[in-house]
């Protein structure tokens, strides 16, 4: 009963309600601008809310977090520039929809699906947090490594056309991710003795350049053509549409909440894995994936928003951050005199239920703010290209600079923009590059951790995989997914089917 009271705190205090709303609203716009990240917004808020009480401070932060994760989809759909890494997969099918004049529908579906995903995440947090965090802790370095390999196999679904070009792009991404001082041994890699390269290449700069600048350059080809007229007949998706996608959205939410709960992986990987899952299970999409398939929006958007609830699971139960934003929130709790850790749930259960309440409220606000003002937003795509292209460039430059307040990042961004333009021109997909950069560290660090733990003995390493049920499941999935992408699989399938028919 006390839990219920704590849960309802946020609903009964207008001041807190207002702060959550304000946070969500601001989050949507901060999230929509590439380079302005939720992580950054929340860390600024720590100083800003220093003298406040803990409840209002947390309310505002949670609002920004929830709104920001959703907001990244806006620019992904409208301009093909993901506002945040977790919206990369959203751009793949969202932007083609906008090009067809269906930006309104795309944003509508995205909003409702984010809302559903958000609730699944919160539900799991509220009902099964200790269980999930126990499971998440079971992941050993070798399991993270297998997860990263599983992620790299997504190259197949992210590259339309030539798989070889996709693999090349993925490998390039992994190499880009490895530049700089290796965080484990501090050895320099691909730095060529330039001090500039020691800190590595900012992943956000690569993303903004590859998507934003290359898009602007590509648009220059059509500068004299008229912009696509947007039809804004239906923004809120019909109940039938929601119902149709409900099974998929529940599956992808589960992926989201699990990946979100793992310390070290977050919404970006969750969204990409969910996209891949959708591509695998959807037999007959109305439109092919990459061409504006609704499922291609449903999957990543449910996953990245359910990852929010997921990220709070290890934070609340163990004091271990589930992602960068929850890491900062742990700092904020410390500053406000709490001791986040395994004892927080026991010492101060009110905090847990208060956070759950805030998340619920933020999720509702996200739906409200998300569905209003869409008409205004879709106008962006209708702007003449002579206005739109400079706008994209401006956004990209500001975004790249904002990440580290460094001009170097702007140069990187522009360089990768030009490079991305040529890659597109020659039919190299950009998705796998970003995938490679995201997974590079995860794969590299955990492979080394895993093999060092086994005293660099491959035999012991494989023994570990076979004896741990979790590793075994992941390992078998890697093999199956890999084989399913080779010609071997279709041959085997054909034979099995033939046999089946012969028998019947």
């Amino acid at each position, binding site marked *: 009963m006390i839990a219920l009271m704590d849960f309802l705190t946020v609903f009964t205090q207008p001041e807190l309600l207002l702060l959550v709303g304000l946070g969500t609203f601001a989050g949507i716009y901060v999230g929509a601008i590439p380079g302005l990240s939720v*992580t*950054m917004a*929340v*860390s600024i808020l*720590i*100083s800003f809310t*220093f*003298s406040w009480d803990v409840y209002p401070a947390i309310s505002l932060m949670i609002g920004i977090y929830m709104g920001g994760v959703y907001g990244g989809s806006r620019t992904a759909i409208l301009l093909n520039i993901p506002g945040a890494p977790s919206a990369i997969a959203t751009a793949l099918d969202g932007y083609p929809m906008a090009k067809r004049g269906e930006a309104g529908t795309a944003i509508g579906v995205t909003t409702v699906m984010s809302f559903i995903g958000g609730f699944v995440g919160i539900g799991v947090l509220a009902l099964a947090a200790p269980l999930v965090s126990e499971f998440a*802790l*079971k*992941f*050993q*370095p070798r399991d993270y490594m297998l997860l990263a390999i599983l992620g790299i196999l997504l190259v197949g679904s992210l590259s339309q056309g030539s798989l070889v070009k996709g693999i090349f792009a993925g490998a390039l991404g992994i190499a880009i991710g490895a530049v*700089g*001082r290796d*965080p*484990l*041994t*501090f050895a320099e890699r691909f730095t060529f003795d330039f*001090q500039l390269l*020691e*800190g*590595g290449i900012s992943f956000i700069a690569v993303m903004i350049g590859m998507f934003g600048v290359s898009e602007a350059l590509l648009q220059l080809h059509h500068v004299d053509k008229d912009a696509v007229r947007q039809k804004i007949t239906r923004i809120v998706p019909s109940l039938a549409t929601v119902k149709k996608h409900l099974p998929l959205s529940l599956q992808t939410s589960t992926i989201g909440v699990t990946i979100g709960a793992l*310390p*070290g992986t977050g919404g970006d990987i969750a969204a990409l894995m969910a996209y891949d899952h959708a591509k695998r299970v959807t037999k007959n999409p109305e439109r092919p994936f990459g061409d504006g398939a609704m499922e291609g929006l449903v999957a990543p958007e449910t996953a990245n928003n359910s990852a929010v609830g997921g990220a709070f699971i*290890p934070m609340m139960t*163990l*004091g*271990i*951050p589930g992602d*960068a934003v929850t*890491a*900062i*929130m*742990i*700092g904020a709790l*410390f*500053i406000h*005199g709490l*001791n*986040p*850790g*395994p*004892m*927080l749930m026991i010492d101060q259960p009110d905090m847990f239920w208060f956070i759950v309440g805030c998340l619920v409220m933020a999720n509702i606000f996200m739906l409200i703010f998300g569905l209003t003002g869409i008409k205004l937003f879709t106008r962006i795509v209708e702007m003449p290209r002579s206005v739109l292209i400079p706008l994209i460039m401006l956004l990209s430059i500001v975004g790249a600079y904002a990440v*580290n*307040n460094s001009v170097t990042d702007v140069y990187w961004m522009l360089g990768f923009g030009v490079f991305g333009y040529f890659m597109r021109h020659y039919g190299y997909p950009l998705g796998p590059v970003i995938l490679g950069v995201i997974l590079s560290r995860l794969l590299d*660090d955990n492979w*080394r*951790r895993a093999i*060092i*733990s086994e*005293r660099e003995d491959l035999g012991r390493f494989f023994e570990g995989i076979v004896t741990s049920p979790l590793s075994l499941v992941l390992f078998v999935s890697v093999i199956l997914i890999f084989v399913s992408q080779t010609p071997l699989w279709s041959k085997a399938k054909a034979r099995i089917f033939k046999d089946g028919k012969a028998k019947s």
Partner: protein
Amino acid sequence: MKRMIVGALSAFALTATAAIAEYPEKEIQGIIQWGAGGSTDTVMRSVTPHAEEALGGTVVMQNMTGAVGAIALNHVAGSEADGYTILMGAENPMLYKIMGLGDKDYGEFTPISILARGTPVLVAHPDAPFNDYAGMIAYVKENPGEVRFGSTGPGGLPSVITAMINAVEGELDVTAVPYDGDGPALTGLQGGAIDVMPAVLGASIEGIRAGNMKVLAIMDTAANDKLPDAPFVTQFNEGYNTYLPWGPFFGVFTPKGTPDDVVAKLVDAYSTAAQNPDFVQLMDDRGFTLMGIGGDEADAFLTKWQQGTAWLLQDAGLTKASPEEFGIARP
């Protein structure tokens, strides 16, 4: 010629007005060496608002990560020594030179305040087959290479503590598994990916309280009032008295050459802030020892810290260059 004189005169006039004008007359940039949410970040973000109050100005804090903090350090070292760009960092830059990570350290800076110091502690997974420091040493000797220690790269706290153990007990055959920070390593410890982790008390205290990890020994010469029942390492081996007490620290620095009155104001502001009850409470909760020293006292502390740690690592064979090359005397 005339133009030069006018130029020189106006430059003189400018510096003169700058000196007369009350510092701070604009925002101060505080560059935090480590990422948001980490120990350094938390400490700096909680002390600075109190310092702002004392200073009557604004300090805009910004995280600048990369290359174990060297990027932030070089950035501040390269900015103008006017007190408007200050560095908020931890202990590790003192080891950059000998670790081959950079050619600058806090020697390029004037310390404003060494705020607090942490106490290292050896923690283990609750299922580990030993319950205290002596048990661990015995187990490692019986099972060479089997015990996995967490590490955070050369020069990090775990590497220093491991070097200390090797110096006192003789070479121990343990497997060092690298992590990119003590947070992820302690997560790995709780999941059983590593067995033992030398960590700072503040980062592990909540896990210890909950029984998710057990204390093998506090790496100090006396019991800690946060964990009064936990054994301290000199109980097991007197040899540690040579090296302890040792610990990581947090400090605020300004480039050398900053005007004295500006330094004095900053020192004053941060030493006032370090005594703020809220901050004292926070440091105590996190298991840090409050220091709040500035000026010559801080300089002496830094020199002693660098000498002790650099030579310890040198003797353990972990350095890229000898401390002697940089004029770091053997303690």
